[in-house]
């Protein structure tokens, strides 16, 4: 029975993946990875053992956004929702066996971390995968799949020592101490740690104390964002406060080194200006550090950040935190996706010109960047 099921699913996965290759004409790495996603969904269908027709239809549904949705973000979100729904349904109906859990762990990690293929550092990702399996084994399938995957998702692969994070979580899960106490300790640590470490603390807390329930819906929704899994790993919840630039945004693209000033004329009858600003080479600056001033008002890390600190290569080492109101500007895809962390600063009742001054005590090479202004 199972042998024939394997053969059927293998045949279906091959047919569907080849078909998927031909229906995706868009150039994003997510679109190009559609056959891979199809294969992963077929694996879910096989492991679930029930309702095979539903999984096969779900695979077909993946073709719908590829064919009908031209807008990139809408299409990618549609992929995300379909794949996440399939994954969640498979987890819900599959037999509760360790083999099943391990398979779902592998599928989830591949979906969240192995796209785009060109950005995968294979040996590091393999270590993360093994770490995720270790967490699954340590939890003995008691850990809900979404939370288990959160551990894998949040694990930084730069620097290399952070590859041990999932193994650390596995050990923590095995420690015979009341989990609430351990979670409390991590909560305290999260309050004092820098942002990138606080993220990992929160993940450990989730792994320790989460229970099946309605919060699963939130986890599924976040899982649906796998086409931007890097954003979920490093930019959540900051992304929720992100604002898109308005249509009247005027590009500026000027940078000021330490002590330098620059000014921008303000059109008459302007009652407010929204400045989109960031810093460069500023990943070592802590939140609250003044980077510069605009019309005498300080601009601090926290209002802005190093523009690329959420890149996976820089994130863990960075001491920045996301701006309060970041610019909604997502770059790259999948595990490599990052939020351009320019902050949006609103200045009411500006004078005839805006004067920006970079702090005189900035480290060498660090610059205050004025990217755009919007006059209202």
């Amino acid at each position, binding site marked *: 029975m199972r042998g024939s099921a394997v053969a059927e699913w293998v*045949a279906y996965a091959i047919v569907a993946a080849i*078909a998927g290759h031909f229906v995706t004409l868009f150039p994003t790495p997510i679109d190009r990875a559609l056959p891979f996603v199809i294969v992963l969904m077929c694996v879910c269908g096989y492991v679930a053992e029930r309702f095979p027709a539903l999984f096969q239809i779900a695979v077909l549904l993946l073709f719908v956004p590829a*064919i009908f949705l031209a807008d990139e973000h809408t299409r990618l979100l549609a992929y995300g929702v379909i794949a996440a729904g399939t994954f969640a349904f498979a987890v819900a109906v599959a037999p509760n066996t360790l083999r099943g859990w391990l398979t779902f762990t592998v599928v989830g990690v591949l979906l969240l971390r192995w796209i785009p293929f060109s950005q995968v550092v294979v040996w590091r990702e393999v270590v993360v995968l093994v770490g995720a399996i270790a967490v699954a084994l340590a939890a003995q399938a008691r850990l809900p799949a979404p939370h288990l995957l959160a551990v894998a998702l949040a694990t930084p692969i730069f620097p290399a020592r952070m590859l041990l994070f999932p193994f650390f979580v596995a050990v923590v899960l095995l420690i015979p101490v009341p989990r609430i106490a351990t979670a409390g300790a991590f909560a305290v640590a999260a309050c004092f740690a820098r942002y990138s470490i606080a993220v990992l603390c929160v993940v450990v807390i989730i792994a320790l104390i989460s229970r099946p329930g309605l919060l699963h*819906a939130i986890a599924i929704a976040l899982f649906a964002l796998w086409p931007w899994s890097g954003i979920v790993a490093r930019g959540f919840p900051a992304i929720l406060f992100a604002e*898109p630039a308005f249509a009247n945004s005027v590009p500026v693209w000027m940078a000021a080194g330490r002590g330098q000033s620059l000014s921008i004329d303000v059109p008459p009858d302007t009652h407010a200006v929204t400045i989109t600003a960031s810093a460069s080479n500023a990943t070592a600056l802590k939140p609250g550090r003044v980077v510069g001033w605009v019309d005498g008002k300080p601009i601090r890390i926290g209002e802005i950040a190093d523009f690329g600190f959420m890149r996976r290569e820089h994130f863990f080492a960075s001491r920045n935190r996301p701006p309060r109101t970041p610019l909604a500007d997502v770059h790259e895809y999948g595990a490599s996706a990052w939020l351009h962390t320019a902050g949006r600063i609103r200045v009411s009742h500006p004078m005839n010109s805006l004067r920006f001054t970079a702090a005189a005590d900035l480290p060498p090479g660090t610059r205050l960047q004025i990217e755009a202004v919007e006059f209202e």
Partner: protein
Amino acid sequence: MTLALFVAASIASPFLLLRGLALRRWFAIYAGAWILLGVLALFVRPLQIQIDPYLAIVTFGVCVTAAFFAFVAMTDPIDVRWSANRAAIVTALFYAVAIPLMLRTPIDGDEPYYLLETESLVRDHDLDLSNQYRDLAHSATGRTDLAPELGDPVGKHGEQYSRHEPFLALLMIPGYLIGKLAGAIATIALFGALLARSTVRLFEDEGIDENTTRGMFPFIMFGPPIVFYAARIWPEVPAAFCFVEAVRGVRQRKLGRWIPALLGLVLLKLRFVLVAIVLLLRAFRKKWHAAVAGLIAIPIVVVAFTGSVHRWNELIPGSPAAMLRGLFGLLLDGAAGILFQAPIYVLGVIAIARWRTMPAAFRLGIASATLYLIYLVPRSEWHGGWSPPLRYIVFLMPFLALGAASLWQRIAAGPIVAAAAWTIALVAHGMAYPWRLFHIQNGENVVGETLSTIWYSDFSRLFPSFIRMNFAAIVASVIVVILIAIPWWRVRWMWIAPAVVAVAFVAGRRPGNRIEFEDAHVIHRGGELYPTEFQVQRFAYRGGWVVRQGDSLSFLAREGASKLQYSAPADSIIQIGRDAYVLPATKGYGEVRVTLPHSGRIELHCLGGTVNLDRMDHE
């Protein structure tokens, strides 16, 4: 308000149909669905997702409703409170949500005329609509552009009557008095709920097990075409109710049930007399009873034909070719056929091929409709005209559903799930954009048009069209004959489906052999549609695109010689590639041979004159 209604309906329904652990589990899923929607909605702005929020909410509602009925169908019967009455109440609850959704745009087609009749009955106590047309500003129709329909009867003293039978208008009076337009539609929805009850009872009577009934139920009552007619003013849903009750009455030999039901059926629409005649003959056990009934029926028919817009010559059946075209069209047409507009009923059609093993009520229902279908399919408006799809066979759907239910246990899950997914998409689309339920009969359908618009290639040609016959229609007809003849449910459809989609997608982006110039894939720079979009009986015309000097068209076509079909009142000149062609004036349609320089995108310019470009066929 609509959202509040939906929330109320979706919270009340589980209490009506579920109990115990199943009820708790469903509400956990339900709450999870809302949380999921809420969290995803938070990402719409930062990720700059371009989606119509109205469509998103309606789709969510449809998916939740579908999930609920799937849950009800798959739950252990111990935890389900299933009965015909409960099913009817739940149906009424969801139809109450459908009414405001359908009223997003003004009522259309025949609907406003039925409402005008109701208004006339209420205000003037007559059926003369002259004053209603004069004072449309005070009409609940919301339409100030109404004029008498083509062929509407005119009285001796200039009275303007409607061609539509007044019985439906009469039935809507209480609803209209209570809630004007919404009240009138609620009357139809009430018939929809009654139809739900009758259909469940019919299934029970015919020995369909409860699990199958629960599985089929959402397809029937919340799938097309019934759901679209249950929240609009058409006589189809009340007629379906009457027909089901009539057949049940005949089967149970309850005169008190079938006689009023049959009378109601005929009064709703005279065309149903063709159904009533056969059913009447079947109702009587003795030949002399039938003979007497026949004698009584004759004067009724005579009176009916002399006192309505129908003519005796309509009783002459059409040609066999027209019959085949209409029959296969009703089955397979992309815009108006069962396969694309209500796919689950394909099983009902298959059931006809297994006649002897079908329930008696199925055979009686289908047999009663045979005469009606024989007269319907050769007519040029077999597709229903300006109405939501499948208009003329809505009344038959409960019986096709009964046939489908008989096959239900033998059907693989794949086709059922595929039909469910397609049905959900149809309902979400129709509920979000009710005006798109009305589609001009130009040979295209919504999916084909959408794809053609996105990819600027002729995808419509991949969908069978019997309104404007195409090659896909012939292929589909041959395939369907083969499939009905063999035990098709053993084929692994789901294996083939991805390959079919991929092949169709690749083929659709290539130039076709025939270019219909009015189609969505043609980029029109100037010119106008012929005939105009709302031309009455538009399907009777050869469509086209009228271009004048300076206008141009762009389309994908194949290299080599092609025949261009057109009509022009005077000589015109067009340019294709580097070559110019003189199109001589025509009486009717003419043809000219053109040569396309290469395969791919072709530009056609009108250099002089006015020409109606019909189509171009590659040789």
